[in-house]
């Protein structure tokens, strides 16, 4: 059933706009469908970006935040450069990912776990750590797939393409102070 906001809460449209640089362009969507048509993963999306934007305009917050659309997005920016209305579609996908993760409405995707594992290494070392990332991520999220990853890891390792130890930047305290401050300042850009 369609529900309309009756209280003084800002609309979902406004929320998405406020969390996205140049997000105000979203109101100019003409529902042309170029975005979905350009998307390499469009066929796997429950709602194309076009349909998702119509749902945002209709204030269907829960439907949008539990959709798989943004989790199919690989940030290729085809939609963004092709959109005739200059809507920053890929950035909006990032906004929806952030809102969905924050509210725990991301379903059937390991993307949030990957993002969390990745950034935890970044926060601790200042560098990403491919071996640690892959092994931790697979161990906790898809242990069975680890078997398949073994041969791949080994062939990278034998070619000197996999390091078993992370690198730490010299001034990690500085980076951590910046990260801490940024987190304090909140998330609206």
């Amino acid at each position, binding site marked *: 059933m369609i529900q309309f906001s009756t209280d003084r809460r800002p609309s979902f449209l406004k929320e998405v706009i406020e969390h996205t*640089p140049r997000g105000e362009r979203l109101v100019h969507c003409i529902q042309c469908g170029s975005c979905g048509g350009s998307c390499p*993963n469009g066929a796997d999306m429950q709602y194309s970006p076009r349909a998702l934007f119509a749902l945002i305009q209709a204030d269907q917050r829960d439907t949008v935040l539990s959709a798989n659309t943004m989790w199919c997005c690989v940030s290729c920016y085809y939609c963004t450069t092709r959109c005739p209305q200059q809507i920053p579609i890929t950035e909006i996908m990032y906004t929806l990912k952030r809102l969905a993760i924050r509210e725990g409405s991301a379903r059937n995707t390991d993307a949030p776990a990957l993002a969390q594992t990745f950034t935890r290494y970044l926060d601790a070392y200042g560098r990403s750590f491919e071996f640690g990332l892959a092994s931790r991520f697979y161990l906790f999220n898809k242990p069975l797939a680890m078997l398949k990853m073994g041969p791949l890891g080994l062939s990278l390792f034998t070619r000197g393409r996999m390091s078993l130890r992370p690198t730490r930047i010299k001034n990690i305290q500085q980076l951590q102070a*910046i990260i801490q401050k*940024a987190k304090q300042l909140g998330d609206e850009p």
Partner: protein
Amino acid sequence: MRYAYYPGCSLECSSAAYDMSIRAVCDLLGIQLEEIDDWNCCGATEYHSLHKLTACAVIARNLALVDSRLNQVVAPCAACYLNLKKVDRQMAENPRLAEKINEALAAGGLHYDGGRVRVRHLVDVLHTDLGEKAIRDKVVRPLKGLKVAPYYGCQVVRPYNDFDNTEYPMKLDELVSWLGAEPVPYPLKAACCGGHMTQISEAQAFELIRRLLQSAVDSYADLILCMCPMCQLNLDAYQSQVNSYFGLSFRMPILFFTQIVGLAFGLEPNALGIGKEIVSAQPVLQRRLAAVTQ
């Protein structure tokens, strides 16, 4: 010619071949790359999905660390290139965001003004700043007969590209032709390699990789040239998994464009990291350029 250099995490290890060949080629061309002291990871696409301001601040630290005497930085990885360029642009366009990022940077004693540093990709530097004559002059081993599929991927050509066409880029094609090699028409040259999907959703990632390999085969390419470590890793390291997933038998070598530039300039394959690729490029290089390999 002096540029700041932001190698990015992949070039430290999994794509060391890219770093080696970049440094070797730049040396020969008289391009001085000055690595940003104590740079940190750009966060790839991951931080953007968690926290916008932190994502920007982590990236901006690198821009703030660029030596004040330099105003251009070379970023060879597509994700790093896009991240640095995006934050630089957004800070220039959006004063409120810039102020917040600078508040975060100030906690580490740093500051950055949007627009101060121009972010460049090495294809752009070689094509635009050096140009055809400078490149041709250095070619001692023309790569005659070598058919390559120039693969641009997404994030260098979109959305902040300021040197080539976003739909059908040509600069790498031209660069390759100056080396004597033959760039084949590659319809999917700007399509996506799947990025981090190889970790999250095999079915989606493998289909994107399959299309890219198939398109290169259809164009009779000997190999695919990449300008991003993620693209190279996905197409090269996952090729055998893609083969077993679809019951196919691709054997398409995937090299970095700088490795081919180095070969044409007469550098030794070893010095360019040739041999670190999982699908070996040796057989095809041997066949096409008998004199090139040892």
